[in-house]
């Protein structure tokens, strides 16, 4: 397939680097300031070198990537809330041209799912968004394979930073502030960790799951989710949980009726008590019990792998 990649952060750059190995051609790449288009296929390493040397992918107007002759648009600009712009407009323009869209940006699916499905309904193009939930882990693909109505609930550890902090606090008896500083030194937490530790990132993923599970009966946005973070969990709470064979994790839950994120008690030996930055998702099915899917929930190559899995699904 011919791909246009909009957004040249970690995910966009990894898509560019990995696409060739999956048999695809990248014909356009845009960052916030520039674009480069070549309908015969771009030289990925040349574009990546230029981006790292000069901070921009090319000399063309960013708009030109959206006008290129591609089969699928990979929308990998940073997630924005509320109107989900500019990502939403990028998706809309692709659908108006009857092109397929693969999202790594959570905004349009979490905040404007109804608008998105309405546009998709009027278009020959299709929208896929595996990469928006739990990075490399094929959560949405599994739900599609089983059938949306066959999955009654999804719950899981959907934010590696929050999980790293809670699992270190429990293992070492250290305070939240101490472990957060350590996580920032290790590059596991960002300088502003709000999005992760307050549960917003996990909540966006749960809202997306709730939108998928409700399958058109209702749509949800971040404001509909019940969200609590981990800042106020003291080591004493983790000690008390540990004495009982339990621990505390930031768990996200989604059903057709909505989404919820908060610190929850889970059995220490259970499938949700993963340590470090690992993610895990548990799906409750109508007739096959629960399924657990685990892996890396973030990272450029991991998320790009989910994007390329979606491209592959579009080819079938």
């Amino acid at each position: 397939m011919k791909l246009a990649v909009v957004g040249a952060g970690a995910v966009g750059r990894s898509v560019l680097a990995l696409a060739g190995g999956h048999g695809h051609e990248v014909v356009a790449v845009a960052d916030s300031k520039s674009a480069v288009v070549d309908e015969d296929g771009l030289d990925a390493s040349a574009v990546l070198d230029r981006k790292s040397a000069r901070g921009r992918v090319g000399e063309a107007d960013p708009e030109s990537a959206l006008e290129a002759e591609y089969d699928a648009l990979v929308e990998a600009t940073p997630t924005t809330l509320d109107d989900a712009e500019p990502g939403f407009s990028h998706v809309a323009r692709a659908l108006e041209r009857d092109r397929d869209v693969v999202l790594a940006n959570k905004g349009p699916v979490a905040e404007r799912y109804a608008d998105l499905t309405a546009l998709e309904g009027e278009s020959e193009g299709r929208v896929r968004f595996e990469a928006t939930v739990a990075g490399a882990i094929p959560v949405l693909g599994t739900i599609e394979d089983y059938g949306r109505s066959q999955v009654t609930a999804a719950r899981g550890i959907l934010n590696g930073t929050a999980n790293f902090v809670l699992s270190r606090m429990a293992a070492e008896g250290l305070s939240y502030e101490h472990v957060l500083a350590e996580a920032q030194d290790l590059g596991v937490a960002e300088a502003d960790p709000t999005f992760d530790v307050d549960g917003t990132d996990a909540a966006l993923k749960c809202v997306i799951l709730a939108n998928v599970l409700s399958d058109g009966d209702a749509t949800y946005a971040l404001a509909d989710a019940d969200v609590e973070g981990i800042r106020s969990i003291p080591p004493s709470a983790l000690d008390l949980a540990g004495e009982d064979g339990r621990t505390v994790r930031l768990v996200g839950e989604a059903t057709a009726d909505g989404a919820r994120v908060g610190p929850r008690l889970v059995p220490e030996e259970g499938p949700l008590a993963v340590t470090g930055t690992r993610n895990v998702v548990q799906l409750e099915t109508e007739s096959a019990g629960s399924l657990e899917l685990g892996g890396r929930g973030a990272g450029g190559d991991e998320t790009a792998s989910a994007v390329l899995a979606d491209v592959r699904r579009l080819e079938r």
Partner: protein
Amino acid sequence: MAADVDAATRAYTVRLELVDEPGELLRALEPISANGGNLLSIYHERGNLTPRGNIPVEVDLECRPDRFDVVVEALRDAGVTVIQAGEDAYTEQVTVLLVGHLVDTDLSDTLSRVESCSAASVTDLSLDAPEGTDDVSSARVHLAVESDGVVDALATVRSVAEEKDLQVVEPLVEGST
């Protein structure tokens, strides 16, 4: 419906009749722990004899649902008289953590309101107040809840906690979302 989705243990009550002889109680408890049961409490009515002249003993235990029949069978195999085995005194064990100014906000009032507004009783409480009772502390509360009342009981805990500005860390319960 399971309280802990991942590893559901439930609380059961077993009523036994023991002969009034030394060592009888110990002999009756051994098959419980040997078969995967965890003793929660023992109510030994020593002053109260049954019509047959035996001592009634009520044992609360928790175990996985698939182990309960094994426990009861083992008791009978050991020659213990089992009067009643759990079916109608059937509850789920639910654990919650409370975090905040627990003492300043009257912890005993918090717990009694949880008990009075829902079909739950507090079976165990552990308080951890590392900075003294004036600062933020944590409590672990075990609740015994009638099996169809778990969602309701957790909703009560949430609303009392919200009013007192406490944080609740709930277990995962099916149907709670």
